[in-house]
Structure formats: C-alpha cells, structure tokens
C-alpha cells in the first residue's frame, strides 16, 4: 500500500521547517483565505461551508455550516465563537499535534469562522495540561495581532476580532460544550441544562458557536480551494479529509490525514501493521468512549455512517490498536477508572455508576469476581445508558458493553483467574517490564 491515499490538507505543512512560525506560514500562502473571506458576505461563507459538507470533527459530526446558521443574527447580544481544544480523551491526539505544528491554521480558521457568524470575540479553550501547546498557540495569536490579522480593523477592513486563548484546569468534562462554557465563564465546569442551546444562550447567555479545533482548522482550505474541491475527498455524507490518530501496537504510530471513509485496514498498512509476531485483537474507532471494534471490522469505512453501521461511533478518529497480548478486562477497567475520575459528579448514574463499575471490574481483573457479575455489570450499564445528564456516561458504558459483547469469556474468566495470568502484562509493552514493580502498584490500588 502506498501513501497515495493520504490527502494532507491540515497536515500539509507539518514537515516544513518551523511551520508554526507566522513568517513561514505566510510564506506558504497562509492567511490568504482569511484575507479573501473578510471581503466576502458572511452568509456566503456559511453557505460555502454548508456546501462543503464539513462536519464536526469533535465526534458528533454535526454539519458545521448548519451550526453557524443557527446563530440568530437578529439577537442584539454579541455573538461568540468558542473553539474546543480541550482534547482529553484517552487515545485522542489530533488537535495537540496540529496546534504544535501549525497553530496559524487554527487562528486563520477562527478569523474566517468568526467573520461568518459575526463574532468579534473568539475563545480558544485549550486543555490545561499541555503547556507547550498553549504557549505555542499564545505566540501564534500574539504574532497574528502583530501582523494586523487580529485586533481592530483586521486586514484593513472594518472588521474587529479578538481571540482569547484560555487554558482549562484539567477536567475532561470541560470538553462537553456547555461545561466548557461554564468553565470559560469562571465557574465549576458542569454541563448545562438544554434548552437553551448555546446557539441561543451560550457564553455569557449570548449566541455562541462551539466548534472543535479540527473543524475550524479545516475552514481556510475550504475557503481557499472551494467546496467542490473539499467534496472530492471523503464520501457523499462524510466529505473531506481528516486526521486519523493511530496508536498502540503498530509499528509506526502517528497522525495520518486521509479522506473520511478510509478503512482501518488501509490505515494499519500505513502505520506499518501490527508489531512483528502479533495480531490485531481489537481497536477503538474514535477514542475510549467509542465502542470497540474487532478484526472483523477492518474494512469498515471510517466515516460517520460507516462506523455507526458497525455499531460504534467515529468519534475523534483515535484508533487505539491492541494486539492479542492485551486483556480486555484490564483495558476496560483502566478506561472506566478514567471516567470515574473525570465524572463531574453532577448526575447520579454517571457519578455512582462509574464508582460501582470500577469496583466490579477491578474484582474481575483480580480474578475475584462472582458468578453473575457480568449480568450485574450489563444491568448497571443499562441503568446508566441514556439516563445521565450528558454523554460522558454513555461513553464509558458503551465501551464496557461492547467489550463484553466481543470478549465475554475473558470477563467470565475473571470469576476465578486474574487477568495478568491470562495476559501477562509485560507482554503488552514494547519495553522491558518489571513485574515486581507493577505487583506493588497493583497491591497499592487495593
């Protein structure tokens, strides 16, 4: 398999020397799209983005242009654009490398998108833990101000735009758009009751568009090269190219930008395949909150419809790859522990369900489970699914149920055998592994 399937658009300049510097970005044609956009009719940009078929890259896949058109332009309050860069999901790693490599692509996208929705303030909410990314983005924004691309009368027009780069404080829930808005307002990050939806009353109770960073970073290319060009890539309903993040037991983990609808088989080839002497056991299509898939689904088209038809969600296209050395029980437990830690605590099923499920899964990992635990887990998952305040809980539940669906026998083994006996943990790692040290930490967990 050759690299011809790749369609570098967002990632086009990643291999350029110091691509993150404004001079280099401009030299490669950067900010031409923004300059063009601010001379256009804002509605024409919305139509253009609608026509391009661009859909939200944060996981839900809502058409970006349609979202913009929901902003009531008759509302006298200010309009806001908020960029969700709170990338925190286990396995998901597309936005952070993008911001490291080419922050100006996002800044340019923000200019065009803000202009389209008539926002004069845009906020980029970045995950707080990634200090180096925040600094790079802050520098990019400062440079854009310096160049006259931001601030008063940008590109010599009448249009004013300010961008605020805001660092989160380390909570996964703040990737949920309304929790993000609460956090941005200085409150405890918890999802808000809807309605009102952010488009009507979002940030500071004003009309607000919340978009994923990758979605917005895709906009400059669409403006520069047109909707028809963009639609050449991807499928009819899932247009364009996207970043697939391949991680885990592959030879060349990394970011692969390809058209939507590319199969995992293709991506696996690009990544050099599974490490030598091993076979694929299961993978996630879009991060730890998407139901797992198995080698039977290697040819599923990784677009919104294709993955949904396979019983999962495209999500953030974070393809975590696990070979046959991995215990599904252990993986599920680790994921669930993450969600237990990240549950905001607002609603009962998520807060208490994650607390309970972790304890039960932990027993299964230890080989201390009881007959009936699997049925209990499935019933608890049923009591959580669709009943929590936001979709965080749906995410961790889907993973548990899909794991049991494909690998029930491993969970049943947890009634009598510790997972590390069936799947010695040192076999899963690339590097020398000291069993004793882990044993101590396992003990400390109890």
């Amino acid at each position, binding site marked *: 398999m050759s690299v011809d399937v790749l369609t570098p658009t967002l990632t086009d300049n990643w291999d350029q020397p110091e691509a993150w510097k404004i001079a280099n970005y401009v030299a490669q044609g950067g900010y031409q799209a923004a300059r063009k956009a601010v001379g256009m009719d804002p509605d024409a940009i919305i139509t253009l983005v609608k026509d391009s078929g661009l859909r939200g890259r944060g996981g839900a896949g809502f058409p970006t242009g349609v979202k913009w058109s929901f902003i009531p332009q008759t509302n006298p309050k200010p309009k806001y654009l908020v960029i969700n860069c709170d990338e925190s999901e286990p396995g998901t790693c597309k936005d952070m490398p993008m911001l490291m490599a080419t922050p100006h692509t996002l800044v340019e996208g923000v200019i065009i998108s803000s202009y389209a929705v008539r926002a004069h303030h845009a906020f980029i909410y970045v995950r707080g833990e990634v200090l180096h990314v925040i600094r790079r983005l802050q520098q990019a924004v400062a440079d854009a101000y310096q160049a006259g691309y931001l601030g008063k009368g940008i590109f010599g027009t009448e249009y004013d735009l300010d961008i605020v780069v805001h660092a989160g404080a380390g*909570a996964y*829930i703040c990737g949920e758009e309304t929790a993000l808005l609460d956090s941005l307002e200085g409150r*405890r990050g*918890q999802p808000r*009751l809807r309605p009102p939806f952010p488009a009507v009353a979002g940030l500071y109770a004003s009309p607000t568009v919340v978009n994923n960073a990758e979605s917005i970073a895709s906009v400059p290319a669409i403006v520069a090269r047109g909707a028809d060009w963009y639609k050449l890539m991807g499928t009819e309903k899932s247009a364009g190219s996207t970043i697939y993040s391949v991680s885990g037991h592959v030879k060349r983990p990394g970011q692969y930008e390809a058209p939507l609808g590319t199969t995992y088989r293709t991506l696996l080839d690009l990544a050099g395949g599974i490490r030598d002497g091993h076979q694929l056991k299961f993978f996630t299509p879009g991060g730890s909150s998407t139901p797992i898939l198995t080698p039977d689904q290697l040819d599923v088209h990784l677009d919104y419809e294709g993955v949904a038809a396979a019983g999962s969600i495209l999500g953030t296209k974070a393809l975590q790859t696990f070979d046959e050395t991995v215990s599904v029980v252990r993986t599920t437990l680790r994921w669930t522990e993450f969600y*237990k*830690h*990240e*549950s*905001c*605590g*607002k*609603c*009962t*099923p998520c*807060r*208490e*369900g*994650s*607390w*309970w499920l972790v*304890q*039960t899964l932990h027993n299964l990992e230890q080989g201390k489970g009881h007959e009936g635990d699997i049925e*209990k887990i499935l*019933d*608890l998952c*049923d*009591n959580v699914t*669709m*009943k*929590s*305040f936001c979709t965080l809980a749906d995410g961790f539940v889907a993973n548990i149920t899909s794991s049991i669906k494909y690998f029930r026998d491993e969970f049943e083994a947890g009634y009598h055998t510790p997972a590390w006996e069936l799947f010695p943990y040192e076999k899963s790692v690339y590097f020398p592994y000291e069993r004793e040290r882990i044993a101590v930490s396992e003990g400390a967990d109890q």
Partner: protein
Amino acid sequence: MSTDVKKPDGEVAKADLVTATIDGIQVSVPKGTLVIRAAERLGIDIPRFCDHELLDPVAACRQCLVEVPDGGNGRPMKPQPACALTVMPNMVVETAATNEKVAKHQQGMLEFLLINHPLDCPICDKGGECPLQNQTMSHGPGESRFEGLKRTYPKPVNISAQILIDRERCVLCQRCTRFGEQISGDDFISLSERGALSQINIYASHPYESYFSGNIVQICPVGALTSVDYRFQARPFDLVSTTTTCEHCASGCQLRTDHRHFQVKRRLAGDDPEVNEQWNCDKGRFGFYYGRQADRLSYPLVRRDGELVPASWPEAIDAAVAGLKAAGASSGVLTGGRLTLENAFAYSKFARAVLGTNSIDFRTRPYGADEAGFLAAEVTSREIDVTFTDLENAAKVVLVGFEPEEESSAVFLRLRKGNRKNGTRILAVAPFLTNGSRKLGAVLVPTAPGDEVQALDSIAAELDEGTIVLVGERAGLVPGLLPKVREYAAKGLRWAWIPRRAGELAALEAGCLPQLLPGGRPASDASARVDLQAAWGIDHLPDTAGLDAEQMLAAAAAGSLKALVTAAVDLADMADPEAAYAALASDDVFVVSLEQRRSAVTEVADVVFPVALLEEQLGTFINWEHRLRPVNIINTDAPSVMTDVRVLAALADALGSDLGMRTPPQAQAAYYEITDWEGAKPGFTAAAGAPAQAGGEGLKLASWHQAIDDSRCLDGAETLRLTAPAPLARISPATAAALGVRDGEPVMIGTDSGEVVLPAAVTASMVDDVVWAPTNSGVELFRTLHARPGDRVRLAVVKTAGGAA
C-alpha cells in the same frame, strides 16, 4: 378592617394552555409548565430529589426520569427528567405507573444513590421524615447489589456555626447551593471536588454566612445538612407539629413548630404561598429559646418594703388594684410592640373602659412627632392592599427607612425573587448600599438620615403608578417623611408601612394609641365613643386626650402620672432607656408589669404578673400586608396559663369592672364585635413648615437593628448568635480620609453622654459625613450615646498605646 381575602388569580386564557397526556390521562396546563408539575396535578407520584418547585431545575439526580413515547412532534425522546421537561402540545409521557422501563430507571437510580449513602437512618436526624428513605421504600429496590466500598468522610463538618454537613449522606442534589444562589443570594456554599467525591463545601476563607441558612437544612432531601441546635434532639415521629406564626417580625411567616414532651424542639418554615412561600429566616427558625431562660417568671411578685417578694395571685391582684385605684384615671398603659391582637385589644379596652384613660401607646421605641397621627389615619383599618405577591410582580419598589433583610426578611426574599424573575427595579433610599440591597440588585439613592424627604423628591420622576414604596419603622423618625409618602400616593403609587415588630399592626387595630380607639375609631370623636360605649355596654369613655409613650414617661418622672401598666416592655428599645428607667423608678408612680421574663421593668415594678408565652396561647398577628396570621397553642402543659387577657380580666374584676373577656378567643370575638365602625376615621394633617435639618458639628448617626443581634428574643439561641454579623462602624472613604481613619482600625463614636468603639469599615457607597453602626449588636447604641438616627455624633480614631486598643 383587614381580612384574609385571596385576590382572584388571573384566569389562564385557553390559548395559553397546552394539553398533553400523562399515563393515558389528558391534562391541560399553562404553557411552560414542567412535566413533574403537570403530573402532580393529576396526583401522579414521580420521585425526586433535586427538584424543588421554588428552585430552578437542575436535572441532576435523574430520579424523576420518565419515558416520552411522543415529544409532541410525533417522535419519541430518550428518557427525560420530568423536572426539567416542559409540557409540549400533544406530548405523551409515561411514568412508572404505566411503563415498566420507568420503574426500572427509578429503582436503578435509587440503587445508585444508596451505594454511597451510609444507611445510618437509625441515628440520622432525618430518619422518619427523609425523602430518600421514603422514596427508597416506595420506588426503590428492596435489596442493594452493591458489595463494594462506600465513600466515607470524617464527620460532620461545620459550614457555619449553626449548620453541619455529614458529607457521606449527601446525594449531591444541589438544592442547598441553588437556594444560596437563587433564593437568599448568599452563594457561599458550592460543590468542590468531582465525581463521587464531590461535596458541598464553603470557601476556605469564608463560612456560610446567611440569615436564611436554616432553609437548606429543611430542603435537604437527606440528613446531610443538620443544625447544631436540633441535631440529635428528637426523632421526627416523636414530634407533635403545630402550624403557627412567627413572632419575630411583621412579615408573619407561617411556621411549623415541633414539640416533644411539651418543649419546642425546632421550628420549620411553613408553606404559605401568599406570604413566606416555603422559607423563613434563621431568627424565626432558631430564635425560640427566650421563654425557657432562668429569668422566666412563674409566680407574681409584689414590692414590700422596697423588695420584690413572691406573692400569691390574689395577693398580687389586691396589691395592683390598690395602686391602680389610688391613681384613678391618672394612669397609663405601655404595651410594647409584640402582643397579639387579642392581648392588645384587652389592654386597649382595659385602659379605656377600666382605668378610664386614653393614655396608651405601643411604641416603646424611638418615634417622631408625625407618626402616631399618620398611623391612626393612614395605616389603621386598611384592607389588604400591597401584598407579598405585589412586591414580586411590581415594576419598581422603593425602600425608605427600611432595610428588608434586617427588618423583615420574608419581604427581602420576595423582593429578591421579583428582581431575579421579573426584573423588579429596586431603589434603596439609604445611607449606603447594604449587602441586602446589593443582593436585591437595588440602586442606591444615597441619603443621610433625615434627608429622606429631599431624597424622595429627587427621584420624583421614578415614583409613578407602577411603584410601590415600602416605609419602615425608622421613617416615623424623619419629620415630614410619612406625609411626603402620602403626597406621592395621591399621585398614584402604592405604599405599605412595614414595622419591625410583629405586634405593631395588631396594636394599631386594637387602638393602642392615645388618639385611637379599637376598630379605627377616633378617640376625639364623640359619636365614635358613643358607638363603642354602646357596644361595650358602659356609660363613659374618657374624652380627654391621652399621653403617648414618651409623654407618659415624662409625666411619670414629673409625678403627674400616678400609675403605669406595662406589658412586655423592653426599656432598651426606647429612645432613651435610662430616662425611661428613671421615670418608672420614681416613687410617685405605681408600676404594674405583665411580662414573661424578668427585665429592667421588673426591677422597678411594684407588682409583677407572669404571663403566658406565645407558644402557650391562641392569638392573631396582623402582618404588614394587614393579613391575619393565626397563632396556635403549641404547649398545652404550660406552667403559667395566665394570658395577658386573663390577668387584665382579673384586675378589672377586682376593680369592680368587667373586661368582658377572659381568654384570647373571647377577646377575639369581642374584638370582631366592634370592627363595624363606619363613621369618620381619624384625620391627619401634616405639621406645617420645612423639615428641620439637624445642623452642627460631627457626623450624622445612621443606625438600625441587625436581624440577629443582642435582642432578648434571641436569648438562649447562642448558636444562632454566633452567626450574627460583626458590628462595624461604616463611613465613606472621603470621611475616613478626612478623619485619618483606615479600614479595620478601631474608631470611637461618641457624644457628650458616652462613646462606643467599633472597627471602622470604609464603605465605598456610604454617604459622606455619616456614620452607621448597628443599634444593638455588642453595645446598646442609643443608651450609650443618648442619640437617635439623624443626630450628630463625634468620630475619632482610637489611639492604640502599647498594643491596647
């Protein structure tokens, strides 16, 4: 006369109704109604924890999930929280009654809630009245499948001196935090941590300071929040509950008072949507210990050879009668402002029909020259006019001489609701923007005490027909202010007088003013007297003008008033407590005191009769709306069941007269027999001339009572007192700069009579050349300074020498 009439609700137009189906039953509800409320209308029980009808929905506990086969648009919805789902036309909703899936949701949710709940119901104060316990029984699984580790915490944690939290019991419904944020405006409690370790917490540097903190204990759906006072005091099923009325202010909040073994254990806010909704203040909730102090009187006292000695009732009555007979009509009655209508009426009739005097006054507090006439003419016999609901819906409310959070807290809550929900514009004519005003979103009309008349004129353009002016107790001190309000009322605005004490409206209606007979009859009107004589079956009512409170005390001091009957008078409330004490101590005046506890009056009384506590008698308060507020008997096993009415009847009997009533119910009946006066009402002419301006050196004194202060009503409520705001001397930045005062340093407020030392609080919104200090917090301001609000005082930095302030 005031009557308890409910104004007709605005009929909901058919067009504003939406019709949906819940469990197969059609229901039509006003647009915007939540499914959980619509279900309540049908009597369908949906379990809930976070939902509270007076709080904004949060949909956190998920206990009220329902299935929605049709969202009204033909499409099904995922399970929805009934507490946050608005009824849409043609919506179809199924609850646990008709949908097994919903029953499973509910069981599952309760099972989740219980995995981290300690199940310590046998030692939990909430056990027996606990929504979690009850709903587990009605909607929960019989057994838990949870075998793991529960979350535990060290317990309990004080979030204020009064309120404790047992965090492991908390189900994180956020009712308390929403109350703080949405209702009282004291958002000092919040969630901290996350996931199952989320907990209700306070800011590290700031305790939960609120006059309304007890409400969060009441609305907590589990036993997580408790009060220090009630913790481990009783089990709910051992308590006997009585609905009654709070005695602490003129709002007249409904209370549910719980007693066990004839001792009140706790008081809860009653549910009266027209008055206090479901809230009350901490003073009303925790301030009920005053009647069980060591100073409670349980037998009469008579002065013999200068010493007060215990006496039998007949002995004491003989002694009192001897003194009162000797004084004849040269006697007076001071009733205080905390009596029920029945007791006040008994005193009024006793003064007129038995003693033969018009010298009666309830105003044992500072007042101005205009006040009595204005109250008699304009406040007495008013129908219910301005109501709590009106405050909520008003376009604009102006506060004059009135600090709602301190002086009538249910008014504060309703104003805040109006501001928050309906955008009521609130203007505070005050010397500074108080914390309470800030929470009301009020606009300050900066006004030095005494300048309120000019302040009203300065906002004349605001005083339109949509405006309600609320005047407080202190308005009567300002010359010309009450007539000014009436002047604006003539142009269309509405107004209400909100006294600070619970009994003042009842005292007015009962005629406890020199110029006012019961039922709004002018004492100077011969036909009114004849009318009352006929009703009372007596030949004569006094036609000479009576003395008011300060005149009576002056006459007593001068020896021209021979006898005084006092009822529950606290001399510290008077404008000049020391002069009042000296007057009563005069050898020439015979003092008969009817009171519950030993007081300053006891020290100088000649005969003392112990009277029943409020919780031992029936009665009625009239709140500031002129709404009748029933007081019910809580304690049927009281040591003294001699009510004021009963003692006065005994005195009347021994004086050879007949009071015509021996019990509060008889007094009530007798009162209603004479409320049919249709003749002329008392007139009132404002004093001519411009209001006097207090000139002179120094700063003007501004002062009012803080709700929780050193009031004797709060004796015994020591935990409550710990939550009182610290006393401060507030001055403006310019005044502070001129006097060289830094924020926080001790300053002396002084007059020729005395001085008090308080920490200075430099307050940005404060009017220049005014100092504010609380009336009775740590120091009795009026007694020490011999000054009233508006008078001039000195202010100086206290020089610290050798570290001593």
